[in-house]
């Protein structure tokens, strides 16, 4: 187990290193235009541009430029997202401050909707599988089809139109940075974003749980369980469900991790100033340091979640061993 963790951690570092190189190359070298020129504004001259280039380190060789940013990715206090390197080129805000303020919003959105989609997806999937071909199964599958097909941005706008604009049931959304999170939650500002984000995943989870459940229910060990004289409920919940839910754990870990790095579309539709919105705004402004910061934080969530999922898997399925 110890050796396994060491090896996985080294691998994670390698992955993050590669991601940082690609992010750097893609955003520093590929976009047309000169960052210094964008920063300088309309009225400028060569002198000012040279000064800006010097300030941002753009006059240095490529590998030194990368080195400055890479140093800020080492997770040690003082180095991690160093404010002298990681600040917004458009408004000089430190990236670490922005992430600290925005992450709770993204986390609230993600965790709330993850709970919702599990509460919808798992029971619907079980009912659909156990009562296969019944009305409930058909209804569940129609929900799944619609949910999977509906794009999040469209669903979000429809919900806003219906529940805010026409019915007035849900409050207008849109937080400001620094708003009290608990108050926003209590006033219901997260309800529509939660539901919107949850529906697509719930639909997907319904299908996965149903599919796994149907597969497991036809396994020989389920027949054995029935042959023992167990009740149908015990067969379903103790024998079939546990085996069907293991793959769901994998999906859940990666989905939640992916969203923690920024639920881009939902945050955009509902004007929630989370990490996703930060990344989009910075991208639009070709503002490199925040992009690098958010990308690495998001990638970190994914690789850590990957490891956690693998550990959870071994705990759930005794056949899985760390090697």
């Amino acid at each position, binding site marked *: 187990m110890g050796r396994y963790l060491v090896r996985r951690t080294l691998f994670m570092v390698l992955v993050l290193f590669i991601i940082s190189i690609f992010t750097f190359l893609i955003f520093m070298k590929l976009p047309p235009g000169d960052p210094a020129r964008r920063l300088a504004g309309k009225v400028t001259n060569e002198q000012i541009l040279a000064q800006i280039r010097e300030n941002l380190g753009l006059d240095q060789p490529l590998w030194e430029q990368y080195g400055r940013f890479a140093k800020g990715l080492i997770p040690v206090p003082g180095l991690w997202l160093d404010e002298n390197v990681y600040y917004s080129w458009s408004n000089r805000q430190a990236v670490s401050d922005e992430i600290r303020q925005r992450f709770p919003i993204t986390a609230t959105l993600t965790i709330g909707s993850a709970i919702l989609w599990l509460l919808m997806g798992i029971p619907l999937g079980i009912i659909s599988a156990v009562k296969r071909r019944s009305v409930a199964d058909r209804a569940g599958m129609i929900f799944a089809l619609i949910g999977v097909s509906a794009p999040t941005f469209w669903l979000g706008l429809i919900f806003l139109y219906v529940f805010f604009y026409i019915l007035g049931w849900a409050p207008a959304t849109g937080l400001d940075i620094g708003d009290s999170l608990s108050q926003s939650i209590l006033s219901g500002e997260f309800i529509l974003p939660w539901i919107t984000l949850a529906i697509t995943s719930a639909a997907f989870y319904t299908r996965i749980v149903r599919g796994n459940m149907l597969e497991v229910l036809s396994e*020989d060990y389920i027949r*054995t369980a029935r*042959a*023992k*004289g*167990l009740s149908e409920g015990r067969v379903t919940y103790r024998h079939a469900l546990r085996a069907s839910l293991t793959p769901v754990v994998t999906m859940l870990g990666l989905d939640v991790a992916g969203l923690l790095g920024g639920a881009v579309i939902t945050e955009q539709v509902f004007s929630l100033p989370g990490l996703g919105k930060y990344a989009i705004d910075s991208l639009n402004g070709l503002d490199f340091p925040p992009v690098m910061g958010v990308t690495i934080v998001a990638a970190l969530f994914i690789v850590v979640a990957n490891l956690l999922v693998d550990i959870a898997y071994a705990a759930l*399925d005794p056949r899985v061993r760390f090697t």
Partner: protein
Amino acid sequence: MPEPLLDVKDLRVHFPTDDGLVKAVDGVSFSIAPGETLGIVGESGSGKSVSCLTVMGLVTRKQADIQGDVIFQGQDLLQLPADEMRGIRGAKISMIFQDPMTSLHPFYRVGDQIAEAIREHRDVSKREAFNQAVEMLDRVRIAKPKERARQYPHEFSGGMRQRAMIAMALSLNPDLLIADEPTTALDVTVQAQILDLIDTLRQEFNAAVIIITHDLGVVAEHCDEIQVMYAGKIVETGKTDDIYYSPHHPYTWGLLGSIPRLGQELDRLNPIHGLPPSLINVPSGCAFRPRCRYSFDRCISDVPELIPTDGFHADACHLSLQDKERVVREEVLAPR
């Protein structure tokens, strides 16, 4: 003859499918006395497993159209409500399956799985049930049963898993054990051990046993009676000696002919030609006719009935008894 433990009368199990009605079991009658061993032999799809799964209540009226009677200890199991049937299943009638690799739940410890069966039917504590499970593992000759009970199925070999399945099936001291191809998925060396174990335990637990197999060789030493099934019907039934030394049905001849024998020089095995019939469009008359070398006109028009020739021995074939005995003498027994 003693009161039969299980008496199946004219059982029909028909599955409606998109392609038509599958007559998996079509008018099967048999009975088994307490402590007796019955072998049911036939190819895949002959209805042997389905008839036993129906006896267990594992094929339900939701899935299939079931007709006939299944009288067990004086009760018609087909008329029992589901929860009463559950009380019998696993406790009085239990079953082990073909593939021990997939028949145990991979996520639970072997001992816990046996204990679960015990606790479902007896009011005992978890610890007590687990101790009984350990004892059962010991009785099926698993070494270090205490440690083994705490292991997961993937830590067991195939033969040990089948032993564990047997331990689970016998843990409630059932009156009837149904073994559905118990050795098919196992190594040849392990097969004999498992069959001997079933034999010994049958005597220890005084249970009746039904062994389902496609291999006549398997049941020879272990069964008192054998019935041969083909396309959902019983085509021949008799004491084991009847089936081996004076078989009367061409299908039984085919099965016997396809067993390789020691000391016999053979370039190739003698298979039965053709394929088992579709159970949706069963051939008219005798279902075995298209594959039968001895068929004649009557086999196309009349369905042969299962008619006793002497005492317990019965077969469903239109050939005359003289013809059958001649073929057995000249073609079936002579090459042995």
